[in-house]
């Protein structure tokens, strides 16, 4: 191939890439127009979901189940539900039957107090406890595809239902701890969750619009930055790193307590799993 031809070939490839990019955008625009529906459900008593702080383009992806990458994890979760694993020779379906009936609304009440453990337990931990105790299987690792898929699938089955965690009774002291975490300054930047998500919600931090920190009904969410689905605890870690604090591990008691507080802040908001966020 001569030099000129090689040059032309490069140009051709670049043009093709441009054309593909244009088509990807054009496709998004089309779905925005078709699905620009009622957005009032994302605001309850003045509490706004992170959905309302997203770009219209991001909202359009969440509105269209086909374009929403998170649905890939939902499909995988549905497969895993029926898959037998562990020494007990059971699958989720062996005990819980049809997930669409048995798991409806389950997402909205987690994390909840478990007497046996003497502390809070969130959905991911509940799934793993089922695996170790009932199925005699290995627990799944945090933020790996299997656990994400199952949590996303169970969340998806409660879609549209209002978040409704319990904060009274035995959960009360853990709720207080979560609240304390939310308002406590930490890290080199000496900031608390409140400084961004209450005091400055709706303002820009560089190019990003700060949300109210009511992600209770959204996670596991498909985050464009991650290019995959991720847990709420992964998001907490990211926030903690941003303020230059030492993050806790996913599933740490501190984060589970905080999760209860954040989900209480999202009370009444619809479950959006898998939500799409930037």
């Amino acid at each position, binding site marked *: 191939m001569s030099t000129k031809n090689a040059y032309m070939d490069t140009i051709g490839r670049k043009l*093709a890439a441009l054309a*593909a*990019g244009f088509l990807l955008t054009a496709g998004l625009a089309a779905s925005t127009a078709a699905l620009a529906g009622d957005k009032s459900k994302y605001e309850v008593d003045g509490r706004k979901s992170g959905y309302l702080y997203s770009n219209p383009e991001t909202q359009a992806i969440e509105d269209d189940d*086909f374009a929403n990458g998170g649905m*890939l994890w939902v499909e995988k979760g549905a497969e895993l539900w029926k898959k037998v694993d562990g020494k007990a020779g059971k699958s989720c379906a062996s005990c819980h039957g049809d997930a669409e009936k048995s798991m409806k609304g389950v997402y909205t009440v987690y994390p909840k107090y478990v007497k046996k453990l003497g502390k809070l337990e969130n959905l991911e931990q509940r799934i793993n406890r089922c695996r170790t105790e009932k199925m005699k299987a290995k627990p799944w690792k945090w933020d790996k595809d299997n656990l994400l898929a199952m949590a996303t699938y169970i969340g998806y089955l409660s879609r549209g239902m209002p978040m409704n965690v319990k904060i009274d009774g035995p959960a009360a002291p853990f709720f207080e701890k979560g609240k304390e975490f939310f308002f406590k300054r930490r890290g080199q930047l000496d900031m608390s969750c409140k400084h961004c998500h209450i005091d400055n919600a709706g303002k820009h931090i560089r190019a990003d619009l700060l949300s109210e920190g009511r992600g209770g009904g959204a996670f596991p969410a498909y985050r464009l930055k991650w290019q995959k689905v991720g847990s709420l605890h992964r998001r907490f870690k990211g926030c903690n790193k941003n303020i230059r604090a030492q993050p806790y591990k996913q599933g740490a008691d501190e984060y589970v307590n905080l999760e209860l507080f954040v989900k209480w802040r999202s009370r009444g908001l619809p479950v959006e799993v898998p939500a799409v966020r930037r």
Partner: protein
Amino acid sequence: MGKARVKVPKTAKAGDIITIKTLIKHKMESGNRKDKKTGKKIPRHIIDKFTAKYNGEVFFSSDWEGGVSANPYCAFTCRVDKSGDFEFTWHDEKGEVTTAKASITVS
């Protein structure tokens, strides 16, 4: 390569312009990221070609580069004159090929 999802309307009238949506699970590793632990570059691994055929004839194809995001979504339009079958093919840099099929009834 992961599972492909395709959305094509089941029926259409002759001469209609239909929208086709496709999505495939793929990490689309750009080749610019570094492994945080070892500091070495993660080799590029992307889908570099996508083609769509209608009754055996290519009507849409595109070459993809490193800037395309993971789990690429691609939507495009097509005018349909007669009933037929669509075939969509994703070619990955490592030679892996995934195909998806759909058909449409045109009245």
